[in-house]
């Protein structure tokens, strides 16, 4: 940077204008607001139609990507209420096991068992986490870290739900196209739904709990009840992801509580940026395909993957989404620094 100058950031004119309701008069301004959203929606909805170009393999990757994105979204909503979770695998595993149980023992078709597992799994998780909702910060994180590991060991020791063998040969989903559209729709609904939710008065309370819980309590609001609701809502996409992937691979077992389901969403959010939901999704859409591309490197893959993660975590701590958003909304220029006269 030139000496004697500093950088200044200002909102672009179009950004300032579109903040206002009158923006809808001009097509250019409408496009400025709507295009980024429509490009994402369009690209995702187009993807399944391009099967010839992408191949089955990348469609499969898209399913896993959406699964991780759902887990990351769930993480982001919890974090918005001040609950930092290190154990998304708990939600994933709960959804996976409930649907596995329903399908294996009662022979429910996926169209019934997936929604049932989504709701029941979320309820179960809420009940499990209810006693520890009073905890704050890193303490809540550590307990959620231990929970999925504990569940895994309990399944292993008590041999319920198939024990170490798991339940295999569950009912399959109807077909690739249907699967893709179902999970893409759910992901999009979650992203935009959560973004809207967090901007409502209800979301305001959640964010206030994160920023200053005592002030919220002083306002006569039962934060315990709000946190409980937040956990339930946040658990829904994650349990759905678990239930969906279980039917996709027709198998559920102890690895449903695996550490990767806790780490991948977390790193997605780190890469994408917290608090905006779009960042969480963007992170997952970079991370998962990247790790697939790295498969070509064999065992070295994980090493490279970690190094990239490091570069992102250190070099861009705010997350890619916030970086892009800033560039989209603001411009930078150099202004001379005024000398302080002695």
């Amino acid at each position: 940077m030139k000496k004697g100058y500093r950088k200044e950031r200002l909102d672009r004119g179009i950004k300032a204008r579109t903040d206002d309701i009158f923006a809808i008069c001009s097509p250019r301004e409408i496009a400025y607001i709507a295009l980024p959203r429509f490009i994402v929606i369009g690209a995702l909805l187009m993807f399944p139609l391009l099967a010839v170009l992408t191949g089955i393999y990348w469609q499969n990757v898209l399913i896993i990507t959406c699964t991780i994105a759902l887990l990351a979204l769930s993480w982001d909503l919890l974090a918005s209420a001040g609950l930092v979770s290190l154990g998304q695998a708990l939600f994933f595993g709960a959804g996976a096991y409930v649907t596995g149980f329903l399908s294996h023992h009662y022979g429910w078709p996926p169209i019934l068992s997936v929604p049932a597992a989504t709701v029941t799994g979320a309820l179960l998780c809420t009940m499990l986490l209810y006693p520890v909702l009073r905890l704050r910060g890193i303490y809540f994180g550590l307990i959620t870290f231990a929970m999925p590991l504990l569940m895994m060991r309990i399944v292993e020791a008590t041999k319920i739900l198939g024990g170490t063998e798991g339940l295999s040969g569950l009912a399959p989903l109807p077909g690739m196209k249907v699967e893709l559209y179902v999970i893409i729709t759910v992901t999009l609904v979650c992203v935009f739904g959560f973004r809207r939710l967090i901007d409502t008065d209800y979301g305001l309370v959640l964010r206030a709990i994160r920023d200053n819980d005592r002030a919220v309590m002083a306002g006569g609001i039962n934060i315990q009840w709000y946190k409980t609701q937040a956990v339930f809502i946040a658990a829904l996409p994650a349990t759905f992801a678990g239930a969906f992937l279980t039917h996709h691979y027709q198998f559920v077992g102890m690895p449903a509580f695996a550490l990767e389901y806790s780490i991948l969403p977390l790193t997605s959010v780190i890469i994408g940026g917290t608090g905006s939901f779009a960042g969480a999704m963007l992170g997952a859409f970079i991370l998962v395909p990247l790790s697939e591309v790295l498969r070509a490197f064999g065992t070295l893959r994980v090493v490279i993957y970690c190094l990239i993660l490091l570069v992102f975590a250190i070099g861009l701590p705010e997350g890619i989404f916030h970086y892009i958003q800033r560039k989209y909304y603001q411009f930078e220029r150099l202004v001379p620094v005024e000398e302080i006269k002695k």
Partner: protein
Amino acid sequence: MKKKAITFKFLALAILFLLMVTGCGSNDEASIDDVSTIVLGVPTALGSIEGADSLKAVELAVEEINNAGGVSVDGEKRPLEVVSIDTREHEPGLPVHDALAALEKMIVEKKPDAIVVGSFRSEVLLSAMDLIAKYKIPYICTIAMTPDFQKKVSESADYKYMFRMGLNSPYLVNYLSDTMAFINQKFDFNKVYIVTQDVLWAKGTGTGLEKWFQANGWDVVGFDSYPTGASDFSSTLGNARAGNAQVIVPIFDMPQSGILLKQARAMQVPALMAGFISPAASDSAWQTFEGEVEGLVNLVFEIGPIPLQAVPKSVEFNANYGKKYGEETLAKLSGHGPGPAYDSIYVLADAIERAGTLESEALVTALEGTDMDGVIGKIKFTNDHQVIYGLDPKETAIGAVFQWKTPGVRVPVFPEVAAEGEIELPPYIK
């Protein structure tokens, strides 16, 4: 400072794009279908000892066949080509879907004509079966051992593409129980302690053995199973000592089971260890454990990694493996996997030549009719696509029980046809 941050960001983005580009590049390369070679896929846990050694054995067999001119398909000689992918299944925290994604990537991109070695973990094998049923590719697995595999094959014709040449748990139980009967006859031992790793195949083997022991008048002092990664075995060893167990049957394939071995000696438990401990199966174990494996009766699941005079091909295999990879690598050869992995290539080549085509339906029929002599003995499949293991290498495939004796040699002691020595009590028991 600011400048540095910007460079960082650019670096990050540059790396990302670079990787995307190289990734896509390798994609295109793979889609060029080379018709002249026969592609064999090896999707397994290459980071594990069994997986890595199996791949080496496969490459050895492929090299031998290619040097001899390749496999003739419909009168045309075609060379074999191996493609491998790492499924990382041996890492305990890895979700099943990740391993399956690797398998599917290989199938769609490399379009293998057949798959060998295959899954490492039992649950991955079981869930991979549905995938294979979808793509209809002949699949010969040699590592995962669950008996549920055969149950699935016999239940539905969709799974007919799957074969298994490795040992399965029931056969392992047979070998161990036969060895125990042998020990009982010889030393009049009848108090036993079973200790296994808490995974599907090991636990299943332990339970099967327990039933056999109870049916045959043994006194089972205890039956413990340790989670993978456990590193202290004092409770089991203490119980075994207190219960005066004469034989301890360990069934483990995790590296930490080496601790069990050393700890048993340290706690001076006066019992004969006879079972399966993977770190003590290879020839180099004597050196690694500084002689503390003495007296251990261990199992080589499928012969191949141990040369048996009774099976000339196994001696030949050891010599060739040593020539290709060096004596040191030979000494570390894993006790489970390499033998059948090597043979599976010859079985496939034979089936392809008999079928005269690479078309999977015909190939499966040809594979079902396999009858040949290999490194592991006589190779024949049952109706549920499992190679038969028994006690005579002239009639079936065999595994071998050996005992570690000074000065660091593995002496085959069972089955009797192949035995080159006798089970002896180590000095610390007398």
